[in-house]
């Protein structure tokens, strides 16, 4: 009996071990890649117009979706929040509810997810396509480092854009919350803003939100350029790399968010 089970179990163990080793190798390679991208940073900023161009493509072109989503999320928060708060007669707390939810969590996280799916996938597809059409090899053969010229500017374009996008998301969300809460529902504007200002602190609420968006920007941009640079040079390869970018970046955002929230807001408000 055990003679029959053992080979099957051994094979399964071998598969698991192999998967873990592969994941480890990929992680090690990704870390080296990250270091290489950081190393080429001075090059990316020497060719500042390249990085500016990438800020345009990652940041400016994401504005529409970020602002609209922020507005809608803020409005929904306001509606749902009012419904629950009014049951306890605490509807004056609506401003602080909307503001804290957005600034601490929803701003960085949702804009990070949107950024990953819009800008992240575009970056991966672009780099993957350049690889497929041998543009990256051509650059190498012309003695120009593609990491410095193609990868690093896109990475920094993403990292720089994210905090601004997250802040804009939160700002528009609060504005949306104001529209619904004060104008539509009729909560007192003074209470709305006053409670908010009293309850939202620059440190830790706003600063932690900014830190989170920086971390998310780094994670998404790194995953996007990594997947693009290492995509298989075929149509299927590029498309699966793009999908992987969105999935891995989204999961990373949520996981990192949890870890950071534990450290940032654990007991920060309690005496």
């Amino acid at each position, binding site marked *: 009996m055990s003679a029959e089970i053992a080979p099957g179990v051994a094979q399964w163990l071998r598969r698991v071990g192999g998967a873990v080793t592969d994941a480890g190798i990929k992680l090690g390679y990704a870390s*080296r*890649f990250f270091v*290489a991208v950081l*190393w080429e940073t001075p090059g990316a900023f020497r060719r500042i117009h390249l990085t500016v161009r990438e800020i345009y493509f990652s940041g400016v072109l994401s504005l529409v979706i970020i602002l609209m989503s922020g507005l809608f999320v803020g409005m929904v928060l306001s509606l749902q929040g009012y419904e629950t708060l009014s049951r306890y007669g605490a509807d004056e707390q609506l401003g602080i509810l909307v503001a804290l939810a957005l600034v601490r969590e929803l701003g960085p996280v949702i804009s990070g997810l949107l950024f990953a799916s819009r800008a992240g996938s575009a970056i991966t597809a672009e780099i993957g396509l*350049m*690889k497929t*059409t*041998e*543009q*990256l*090899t*051509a*650059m*190498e*053969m*012309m*003695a*120009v*480092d*593609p*990491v*410095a010229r193609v990868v690093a500017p896109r990475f920094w374009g993403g990292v720089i854009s994210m905090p601004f996008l997250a802040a804009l998301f939160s700002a528009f969300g609060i504005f949306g919350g104001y529209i619904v809460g004060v104008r539509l529902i009729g909560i007192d504007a003074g209470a709305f803003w006053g409670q908010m200002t009293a309850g939202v602190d620059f440190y830790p609420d706003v600063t932690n939100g900014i830190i989170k968006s920086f971390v998310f920007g780094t994670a998404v941009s790194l995953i996007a350029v990594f997947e693009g*640079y*290492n995509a298989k040079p075929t149509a299927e390869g590029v498309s699966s790399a793009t999908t992987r970018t969105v999935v891995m970046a989204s999961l990373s955002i949520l996981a990192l968010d949890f870890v950071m929230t534990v450290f940032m807001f654990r007991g920060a408000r309690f005496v």
Partner: protein
Amino acid sequence: MSLPAKSSSARNPGANPACRLDPAAAAVELADVSFAYDVRPVLKGITMTIPRGKIVAIMGASGSGKTTILRLIGGQLRPGSGRVSVGGLSVPELEPEALYALRRKFGMLFQFGALFTDMSVFENIAFPMREHTEFPEELVRDLVLMKLHAVGLRGAAYLMPAELSGGMARRVALARAIALDPMLVMYDEPFAGLDPISLGVIGQLIRRLNDALSITSVVVTHDVYESLKIVDYLYFVSDGRIVASGTPEEVRASSDRYVRQFVDGAPDGPVPFHYPAPSYREELFADVS
């Protein structure tokens, strides 16, 4: 794709002593070179010499390892064994900085052009100049227009690559390959997929530029007709080995079976028609109980 070697911050290619080329040595020499992708052997003991100033064609069926030879010369791959040298310098042993300095003396034409799609034709050709020299913009402009004129596309200078036909894109890529007056130009399937007129144009350009600029050209192709018209020497590669070589006259007159199959385009011969498979009869009648 492995991480690329770091580029040299120095903009003067001649300044790097590690890549001083020997003017007396042949342009490219491969001595008993072997290479394998993981476990699959691709090249098994290749020896070839490419003299300066000549055009040499490397011919073979698809997948015979021709492009691998180009990558070995360019330093993208390291041979498993054997020596790859350019101008007397052993390429695989170069430091990353020296390798990048050496590459500035190369030009490469990729199969479908590999033009940078986010830049115009003008900017594509100006790219190596702007990256590796401190030329003022007026000089860059003059040089770019000169190169474009040499390939007959000066009027297309401000088009985007997406607006070019296949043949035009190939010619622009050629202009880019010679932008810095290289000593060695490598052509990866320059004739693939072109109409007869473009074929003739590209072939003529390869010959004329080689002679006018005194460069050495290595052409990897399987277009026999065009190659025989313009090259000085041919190597035939099959299954990782060199099976034949000679000048165009020798090749045309050759009685070697492989050369004859290639030149005549015969479907069956030393390169078999049938992919290895078990006996036809056995397969058809298998599992008939």
